[in-house]
């Protein structure tokens, strides 16, 4: 039975009621489609309230469990889910506030904010779900609104094309996930994640190939959303074609939800089945990092560069998942990087959205001299690019540092651990190539003119928040790391080794 006062239930009620309320207000309103600011403010209020509830529940001293492995219900009220909820809510707040400026000249505002809220509920419930049925419902609640949001510029064929690609791959990925869940259910006779993992670890030898098939299908299904390399082909097109604020939601939100599901299912399930198969994740991580960075080097449009860079970042995060069974802080490091990446990538995409609103500029060439024309946007964009590259003392540095540290640490138990760290460091250097190139274009080269443009207010506010986050949690990273290690049980390795 679900407790109505548990965090996921409360957050769902808050966000869900507001998401349904906004279209009702719009339908009752006489001048339809003119209240962008009101809806943006309402959505922001709901998301902020949800964020307060989640943070209050962590620190209210109720001793929430870290990652409740043994939960038999459909959702578990644990710190792991709360950690992801905080990341998703911060991203949704940044998207909603920046849409205040971005959606000003567009139509159908009520549907837009309502769909963003529904998608956030889906993402949050993925972090909390401990049952395959719940996971599937949450996964679709996250995905279906984003298909519609990606096609939101109805008059623009590019937005539509982005959405078709996203929809076809997204529908395929959910079919694959249902297939994997079906196989696991057939093998173990339960839809509870923990029970099925226990069942998988006690399989007969002749059924183990089916178990591995299920885990492979899970990697493929979640990998589509995470943007892992053999499944990444839709990602650059969709991120560059969709409205830029929605690309933020996809890159920083739904991608992280894929990781939440992957940690709940694959990492723990794979370990139960056969620990040596984490090598697969390691190989995917190396390919993801390298192809993402090489792809970004050849692009000329800023949203496409950011899309490829988010593929590369998924590779770094995956290193932490691959070494999770061998290192005490592999998962902690991944969670820290997930939180940091959510803010850094949102800041970069929202800065690009600000440039698109003001100058209608997409390509790298048009970013010449941006440092003089839009100083705040350009400065935060530059800082977020440096943070993505992992330059100390910005927040992205600590995530990468800990991930590579965990990879080296795992070298005591497996031979390939340190090679992951080497590949990661080389890729960071490679990525600095195109990040520095953009910064050079913005500050060192002369643009069309040096006239200072008026920057959209709400986007400046979001960017200043992100700037504060990146610098404060870069210098003083302790609290975030503590929260990340609270979310992962310390005895995960023992649980696994004694299975």
């Amino acid at each position, binding site marked *: 039975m679900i407790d109505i006062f548990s965090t996921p239930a409360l957050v769902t009620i808050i966000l869900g009621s507001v998401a349904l309320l906004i279209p009702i207000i719009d339908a009752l309103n006489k001048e339809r489609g003119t209240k962008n600011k009101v809806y943006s403010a309402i959505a922001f209020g709901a998301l902020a309230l949800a964020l307060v509830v989640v943070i209050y529940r962590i620190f209210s001293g109720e001793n929430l469990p870290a990652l409740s492995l043994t939960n038999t219900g459909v959702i578990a009220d644990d710190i792991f889910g709360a950690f992801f909820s905080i990341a998703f809510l911060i991203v949704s707040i940044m998207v909603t506030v920046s849409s205040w400026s971005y959606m000003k000249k567009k139509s159908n505002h009520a549907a837009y904010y309502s769909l963003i809220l529904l998608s956030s509920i889906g993402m949050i419930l993925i972090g909390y779900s401990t049952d*395959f*049925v719940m996971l*599937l*419902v949450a996964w*679709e609640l996250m*995905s*279906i609104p984003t*298909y*519609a949001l990606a*096609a939101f510029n*109805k008059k623009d*064929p*590019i937005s*539509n*094309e*982005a*959405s*078709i*690609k996203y*929809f*076809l791959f997204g*529908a*395929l990925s*959910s*079919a*694959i996930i*249902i*297939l994997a*869940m*079906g196989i696991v*259910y*057939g093998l173990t*006779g*339960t*839809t509870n994640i923990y029970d099925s993992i226990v069942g998988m670890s006690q399989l007969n030898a002749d059924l183990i190939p089916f178990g591995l098939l299920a885990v492979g299908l899970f990697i493929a299904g979640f990998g589509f959303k995470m943007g892992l390399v053999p499944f990444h082909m839709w990602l650059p*097109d969709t991120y*560059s*074609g969709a409205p830029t604020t929605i690309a933020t939601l996809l890159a920083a939100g739904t991608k992280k939800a894929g990781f939440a599901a992957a940690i709940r299912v694959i990492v723990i399930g794979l370990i139960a089945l056969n620990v040596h198969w984490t090598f697969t994740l390691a190989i995917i991580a190396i390919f993801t990092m390298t192809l993402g960075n090489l792809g970004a080097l050849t*692009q*000329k*449009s800023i949203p*496409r560069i950011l899309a490829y860079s988010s593929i590369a970042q998924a590779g770094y995060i995956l290193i932490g998942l691959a070494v999770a069974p061998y290192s005490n802080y592999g998962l902690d490091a991944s969670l820290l990087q997930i939180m940091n990446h959510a803010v850094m990538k949102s800041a970069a995409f929202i800065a690009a959205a600000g440039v698109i609103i003001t100058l209608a500029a997409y390509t790298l060439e048009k970013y010449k001299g941006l440092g003089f024309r839009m100083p705040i946007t350009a400065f935060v964009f530059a800082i977020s690019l440096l943070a993505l590259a992992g330059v100390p003392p910005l927040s992205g540095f600590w995530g990468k540092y800990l991930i590579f540290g965990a990879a080296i640490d795992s070298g005591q138990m497996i031979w390939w651990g340190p090679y992951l760290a080497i590949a990661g460091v080389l890729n960071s250097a490679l990525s600095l190539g195109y990040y520095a190139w953009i910064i050079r274009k913005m500050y060192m080269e002369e643009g069309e003119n040096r006239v200072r443009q008026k920057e959209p207010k709400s986007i400046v506010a979001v960017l200043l928040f992100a700037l504060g986050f990146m610098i404060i949690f870069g210098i003083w990273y302790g609290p975030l790391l503590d929260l990340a290690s609270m979310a992962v049980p310390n005895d995960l390795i023992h649980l696994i080794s004694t299975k």
Partner: protein
Amino acid sequence: MNQPTDFLYIAVILMSIGIYGLVVKRNALRLIFSIELIANAVNLALITFSRMLPSPQGQVFVLFSIAISAAEVAVGLGIIIIAYRFYKDIDITEYKNLKN
């Protein structure tokens, strides 16, 4: 009499047809059909497992799965109708504005 495994074979055949359609066809509607075939093959397999085990969870799962696929296809068809207005065609090889 029909054995439960017969239904599993049918599920595998349906799924193969779905995968064939995904790989070969380039019409957006046919792609949606193919994805739906895969999902429905899984639904059939889930019901069969639920009968074989026996446990009712699989059948509940299928109800959720059917409802969700319906919602998904509704959104997808909407997107394809908008695409048809732009191109007067639903062949996905026509959609290549986004190649750089």
